[in-house]
């Protein structure tokens, strides 16, 4: 098996055992990228030189006999929403296609301290708005399991890159499911940490109260390792929790006896693909057989989550994206004679349709006269959704449900934005409540991966990781390799 298809923790062992050097490893991944990238399109920018430099540095440390961090020397892909100093950060938007970040995001600074290798910036839906990675200004990313299908979104490049062996691990961001849903579509493991667990500083904001950075990886262990590296209080982010993060690898033991797993009935209703339901219910049975206690629960306000999300997220986005006006950085429309023309033309030409749609939606729901009817009301419903989860978590430790209602969709299949919005119906409530959630592969339908979502209490990533690890180790789907970049590559 190619090194590119091994999880990061196994690559780390090989580095420490000097079976392979980081430079060799990095070159191996660069070769894989050269080979499969024309079919996948996971990256918008490659950082070959910087990656090899970091790799050489790690090799020198190993040669000196120094202890290296778990992710040291192992290539990962970074969603192009995260700032790396001196590297283009485009958010897959024309309006930032020439923007070179002048500073490091906190997660990047932390990973640099860990000597992680950044192999490239991953493609995404423009400003993380979309669920298929089709709204990117630059390219469409394809699903390594089914090249005519999307990898999901918005962290589609991060997910496809890992699934195709172009990176051992990656970072995504999740505002309404943008880590978990593409993980489900690509058979990878995607973890959205508790809101505030990981710093958002340097993650270009989509919807500030919902955004959270997290890992996408080949298995649960790697997710824990990446989370260890990136979590913790950040003085630049006042919404980050001011408490020390635990060692998340401590959750990694295959034991689920006595753990109460809730199954929310609202997540198994209309719109859920039959085959997906079958696989997810099978996974829940599997967890039961492993010793978990399965409890039927209800989250009665689930049906309002998507509607509420599409008020709150665009409202915040409309303000967050106001800074892209052609004045300070990024794209500026040429030939403008005055200020208003410059702002209007820059934004008209710089933003794609989905982004414009959400800016307009957000502007509308915040405008005077509609604020109470929409934004304020949505905030109240959000509170109800949070209360739903609080009640349920009085009874159970973890919730189990589908990550997405379907498997990966064919490219261009969904032209109607409203039906695309429904792809996040099971992930959105988790962001609304700021909870941790993971998606792990639990089978296949028509050759395409199906994702199982596990949701935990706020700050209880440990229970989520433990349940996910137990299932993963027993079920073994994480060992399956995608046709492109996988077994046959």
């Amino acid at each position, binding site marked *: 098996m190619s090194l590119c298809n091994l999880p990061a923790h196994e690559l780390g062992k090989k580095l420490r055992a000097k079976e392979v050097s980081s430079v060799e490893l990095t070159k191996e991944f660069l070769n894989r990228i050269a080979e499969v990238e024309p079919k996948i399109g996971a990256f918008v920018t490659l950082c070959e030189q910087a990656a090899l430099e970091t790799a050489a540095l790690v090799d020198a440390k190993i040669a000196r006999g120094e202890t290296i961090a778990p992710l040291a020397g192992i290539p990962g892909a970074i969603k192009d*929403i995260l700032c790396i100093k001196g590297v283009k950060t485009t958010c897959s938007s024309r309006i930032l296609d020439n923007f070179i970040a002048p500073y490091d995001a906190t997660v990047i600074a932390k990973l640099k301290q860990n000597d992680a290798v950044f192999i490239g910036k991953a493609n995404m839906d423009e400003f993380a708005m979309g669920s298929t990675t089709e709204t990117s200004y630059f390219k469409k990313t394809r699903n390594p399991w089914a090249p005519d299908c999307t990898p999901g979104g918005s962290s589609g490049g991060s997910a496809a890159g890992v699934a195709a062996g172009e990176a051992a691990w990656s970072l995504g961001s999740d505002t309404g499911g943008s880590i978990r849903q593409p993980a489900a579509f690509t058979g990878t493991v995607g973890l959205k940490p508790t809101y505030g667990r990981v710093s958002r500083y340097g993650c*270009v*904001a989509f919807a500030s109260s919902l955004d959270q950075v997290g890992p996408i990886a080949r298995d649960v262990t790697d997710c824990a390792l990446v989370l260890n590296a990136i979590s913790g209080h950040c003085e630049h982010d006042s919404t980050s929790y001011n408490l020390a993060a635990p060692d998340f690898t401590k959750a990694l033991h295959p034991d689920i006896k006595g753990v109460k797993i809730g199954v929310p009935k609202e997540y198994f209703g209309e719109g859920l693909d039959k085959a997906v339901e079958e696989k997810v219910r099978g996974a829940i049975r599997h967890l039961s057989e492993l010793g978990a206690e399965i409890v039927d629960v209800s989250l009665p306000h689930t049906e309002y989550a998507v509607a509420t999300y599409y008020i709150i997220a665009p409202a915040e986005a409309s*303000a967050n994206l*106001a800074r892209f006006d052609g004045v300070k950085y990024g794209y500026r429309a040429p030939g403008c004679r005055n200020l208003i023309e410059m702002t209007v033309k820059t934004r008209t030409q710089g933003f794609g349709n989905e982004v414009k749609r959400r800016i307009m939606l957000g502007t509308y729901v915040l*405008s*005077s006269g509609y604020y109470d009817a929409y934004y304020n009301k949505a905030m109240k419903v959000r509170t109800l959704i949070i209360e739903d989860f609080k009640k349920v978590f009085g009874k159970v430790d973890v919730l189990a449900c589908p990550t997405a209602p379907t498997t990966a969709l064919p490219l261009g299949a969904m032209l109607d934005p409203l039906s695309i919005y429904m792809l996040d119906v099971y992930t959105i409530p988790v962001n609304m409540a700021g909870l941790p959630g993971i998606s792990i592969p639990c089978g296949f339908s028509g050759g395409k991966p199906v994702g199982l979502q596990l949701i935990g209490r706020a700050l209880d990533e440990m229970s989520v990781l433990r349940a996910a690890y137990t299932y993963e180790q027993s079920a073994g789907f994480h060992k399956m390799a995608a046709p492109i970049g996988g077994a046959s590559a």
Partner: protein
Amino acid sequence: MKYETIIGLETHVELKTATKCFCSCPAEFGGEPNTHTCPTCTGMPGALPVLNKKVVEFAIKTGLALNCEIQRYNRFDRKNYFYPDLPKGYQISQLFLPICRGGYVDIEVDGTVKRIGITRIHIEEDAGKLVHSGASISDSDFSVVDYNRSSVPLIEIVSEPDLRSPQEARVFMEKLRSILEYIGVSDCKMQEGSLRCDANVSIRPPEQKEFGARSEIKNLNSFRSVQRGIEYEEARQAAVLDEGGRVVQETRTWDEERGVTHSMRSKEEAHDYRYFPDPDLVPFVAEAEWVAKIAETMPELPDARKERLTGRLGLSAYDASGVIARLATADYFDEAMKHTGDAKSVANWILGDISAWLNGNNLEMRDFPIPAENVAAMINLVNKGVLSSKLAKTVFEEMLKSGKAPAEIVREKGLEQISDAGALALAVEKIITANPKSAEDYKAGKDKALGFLVGQVMKETKGRANPEMINKLLREKLS
């Protein structure tokens, strides 16, 4: 027709914290363009604000000084609008939950004390600054932006519409400035924009209860412009009504040079700022304990200082008001009082010669070169009879020039007052002899002639003669 004018002021105060409102860049005025900046205050993609606690402390301090209720639960909101000097496309401000509510300020106009309500005080960040290649934005080929001021902390103090004349508005602003100076939250430099205000002005016939349509005058950045801008506006509105017209609600800008206001935008084209709670900043609680601690650090405020000066020190209300108006002046007074018991003379010097010199040189009290101790010493020399009050002026001039202590100047220049009866008698004798006509005139009952003779003796003694003694001696000799 005679109308009543209704005025409410929105005062913006730049706080003199060391660092900016939401990042750790220096908040000081000036600097090479865009050198006091970071990803956060220039609105870089992904950057986040973190609240400077000192800003909240200063806002609370102001609230306490203006008798406000400090709100326990606080939050920031985004105020959305596009302008190149606003790097994020929104300003972080407080709309829904301002930090202070419901206070008041007492002002004194023509000897009458009047209470002006404070509706609210909220915290916000300042914007950057546009620099035009030409004289104004319309006749410039290009404009550039300096973000040094971006995210410098401001508080906005909103008054109730309790002010009734341009003069009251001006006095209110002056009072605010002295309070803000005393509590040390701002340097209140109007010329640098650290204190500026917008005025909401409307007029109504005296018998009418409801307010008339108001205009908001922007860009009032001196006390003079506050008064003149409102005067212009009340006259303009009166003219509209007198001609049978209707005043429209609008925003107007004050043109200092031409002394007029211009319409900026009407109510119909008013901004919709689409305020909503800023999700990047967690709500904060102003704990009662903390507020109490801040209250303990409150210095003596202008009203209390005035009471002290009029009470124990016996100054007139007029003198006391003059002395306490500016902190530097009041402190100078107090410093001088450590070295003399003569409050009245200290006040006279401060409000007289010292003020005149400062005005003449366009300087502020904090720039005044003579130590208060020396002015006090000079007053003491006069009171002891060593120095005549006339020659005190000479000593004052010399102190400005050389910075020497008054006793030294008196000694070096031989300015001691001559109170020696023998020496003065000789001088008087000499003058009477030299001016027989005046002497005769006085004897004939022309009192004015005495003044002339006194003047001549002073001249003869180079101003050093004790004037009371000369008077006495002349009267004796000529009687």
